[in-house]
């Protein structure tokens, strides 16, 4: 039992570090740092996306015959850790991590040829039509209906919490194609072009004042039958495959540990107001210490799961455990950041973005400017991709067999 990297892995790590040193633009790193949302806006994200694609690394987790890199799980981990340490932005998961792997696994050759290159190139931008106003945690109760009309489906209904729908030209949707069978069995997985009269996007402004999510209205929206992934009625199987990728597709701990390092540095210089730096206060120091222990344990938990995957064992419900733990650590980090910034943490600029020439001047430390927005946005961690309560239901059923 050891944590050692092999010679090849160490060489790979050097290659990744060199690449990040030479290829990650400062303004992209700065934009990532000053983005309160879960992932960056396309103005920053697509820049990094295309740099990665030029290197052949943007879809590193896809199967090789779909344009993946053929990396081992350990190489993926090294890559993600180095990206986190370097402050590279978290890219939109919607194309690369959600619909991409679905098309790789369930798509026809024609669908792969049509959609995968455009995801890798960043020319198609995707959003996800899963939740509906009346179907949140109970996703299988969804009501958006699709009926056949010749070689098309005609889709009616509405999708909500649709991240970056206002940037997207495609939406992948769970729709009901059969109302007569058990609710899971009547669901199909459709790809629908956004640029058509039947699709309307309405912004939803979150507590932080961010426009990340939307409601999407589908009124006789049309898509070709060729844009159905899998068979009619196979949508729920695909949905579960996708959700496992959403929950467990990437490593969380490296970014969390980096954020804690950052808080610790901040506490080391931020004045306590009475006697030395804030980090000298034992209450603050032990809060940071507890978070660090939790995040370091999570890193090892992720590595244990990785070791299983490397041996060909399925990760399965373990992804729910990581989702549960990482979401809570995220929120605790953002809570501690708010506390470290004191009054300055309460500023909540109404202008976006908070990077670039138009950004407002921060009050106090520049990190303080995003602290409140990030804290508020980060409430979503325990809701999206299946709420913490849903993850607990899954673990209770599939791991604990209750």
């Amino acid at each position, binding site marked *: *039992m*050891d*944590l050692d990297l092999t010679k090849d892995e160490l060489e790979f790590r050097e290659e990744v570090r060199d690449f990040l040193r030479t290829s990650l633009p400062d303004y992209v790193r700065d934009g990532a740092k000053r983005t309160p949302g879960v992932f960056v806006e396309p103005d920053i994200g697509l820049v990094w996306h295309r740099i990665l694609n030029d290197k052949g690394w943007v879809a590193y987790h896809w199967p090789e015959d779909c344009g993946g890199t053929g990396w081992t799980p350990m190489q993926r981990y090294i890559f993600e850790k180095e990206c986190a340490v370097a402050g590279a932005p978290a890219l939109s998961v919607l194309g690369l991590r959600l619909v991409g792997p679905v098309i790789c696994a369930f798509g026809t050759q024609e669908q792969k040829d049509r959609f995968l290159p455009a995801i890798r190139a960043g020319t198609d931008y995707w959003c996800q039509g899963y939740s509906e106003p009346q179907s949140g945690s109970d996703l299988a109760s969804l009501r958006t209906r699709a009926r056949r009309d010749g070689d098309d489906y005609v889709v009616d209904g509405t999708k909500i919490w649709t991240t970056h729908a206002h940037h997207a030209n495609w939406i992948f949707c769970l729709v009901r194609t059969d109302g007569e069978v058990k609710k899971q069995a009547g669901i199909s997985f459709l790809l629908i072009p956004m640029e058509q009269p039947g699709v309307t996007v309405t912004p939803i402004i979150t507590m932080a004042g961010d426009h990340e999510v939307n409601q999407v209205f589908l009124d006789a929206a049309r898509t070709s039958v060729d844009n159905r992934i899998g068979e009619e009625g196979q949508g729920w199987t695909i949905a579960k495959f996708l959700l496992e990728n959403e929950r467990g597709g990437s490593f969380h701990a490296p970014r969390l540990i980096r954020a804690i390092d950052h808080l610790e540095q901040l506490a080391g210089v931020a004045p306590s107001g009475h006697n030395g730096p804030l980090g000298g206060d034992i209450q603050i120091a032990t809060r940071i*210490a*507890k978070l660090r222990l939790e995040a*370091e*344990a999570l890193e090892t938990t992720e590595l244990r799961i990785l070791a299983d995957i490397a041996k060909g064992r399925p990760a399965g419900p373990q992804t729910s455990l990581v989702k549960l733990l990482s979401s809570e650590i995220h929120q605790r980090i953002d809570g501690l950041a708010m506390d470290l910034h004191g009054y300055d943490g309460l500023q909540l600029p109404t202008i976006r973005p908070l990077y670039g020439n138009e950004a407002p001047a921060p009050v106090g430390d520049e990190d303080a400017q995003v602290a409140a927005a990030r804290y508020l946005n980060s409430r979503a961690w325990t809701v999206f991709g299946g709420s913490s309560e849903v993850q*607990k239901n899954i673990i209770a059923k599939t791991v*604990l067999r209750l």
Partner: protein
Amino acid sequence: MNFDLDEGQVMARDSIARFLGPVDVAARHATRRQAGGYSRDRWRQLADLGLIAFAAPEAMGGMGGTMVDLALVAEALGKGLAIDPWLENGVLPIRLAAAAGDAALVGELLAGECFASVAFAEPGRRYETDAAGTKADGDQVAGAKTFVLGAPLADTLLVTLAGGKLAKIASDAAGVVRQDYPVIDGSNAATIDLHRAPAEILNLPRAAFDRAIGDVRLLAAAEMLGLAQTMFDDTLAYVGERQQFGAAIGSFQALQHRLVECYAALEQARSMVLRTAMLDPTTDDAHWPRIAAGAKAFVGEAATKIGLEAVQMHGGMGQTDELAIGHALKRVMLLDKLFGDQDHCLRSYARAA
């Protein structure tokens, strides 16, 4: 990177499981009723298994186990709810004897011939591990010690002294005044007053002592991990069997979600123990006690939570002294404070980070 056990580790784990057998609460009560709360015969059996030798360096006749090896032993002992004071009367004395260069004592200890207790804690100094008020004058020692685990059974007392010394004192020597008392896991401890007690004085450099404290902190965490696993397993089985309101109580979401929280805490605790043990070879000795302190605080919190939930979910039966979970919880409570409680260890870790 690899998380697999090697052949020797699997053998050690399996032989410990065979030695301990299924938890027998009646037998535990009987052992605790014996003088000193434990059996020297059983201690020799433990030594015959090689479990004490595991913790001693090869150069002194031991088996030179790595921290991963030792953590797995501690975990297996916890999982089987061992009544044996392997950590406090096996690992700790042998580590200190080895650090002080007393090969003869190491040999007696690893064979199980000599049973030693380490007197490190001092009244009024809470969890500070270094000695302040116990001092040697020539080859005589004066001072006061408390919470000396296993003292009623000990042949030899290893007494930490101010100024980087360790005194080896026969427990029946003149000037040793011992007050025995039972502690929470059913074992016995003592307060010890030393009035010019005759001793052999060994050098025990502060750094070597701190290193040993780091080792036993991590192993306390590993034993708590095993105990937590057992408490969790027992509880999971119980909620599947216990019927109320016409259903197994494990079908109720209020309990399911809390059990998932316990499961998550358990997996995180396991990760912490393994990670810390694996970090040992690349961690410098000065940093080690604090890393181990962090691990112990983290695992202590998890094991305590799991233990209290186990008792709660077992309802009325959980309040009795007849279930393994209660015995496991009491051992966790001892280990959680041994070599520093969560607050103390977290402070130590925070200063190091």
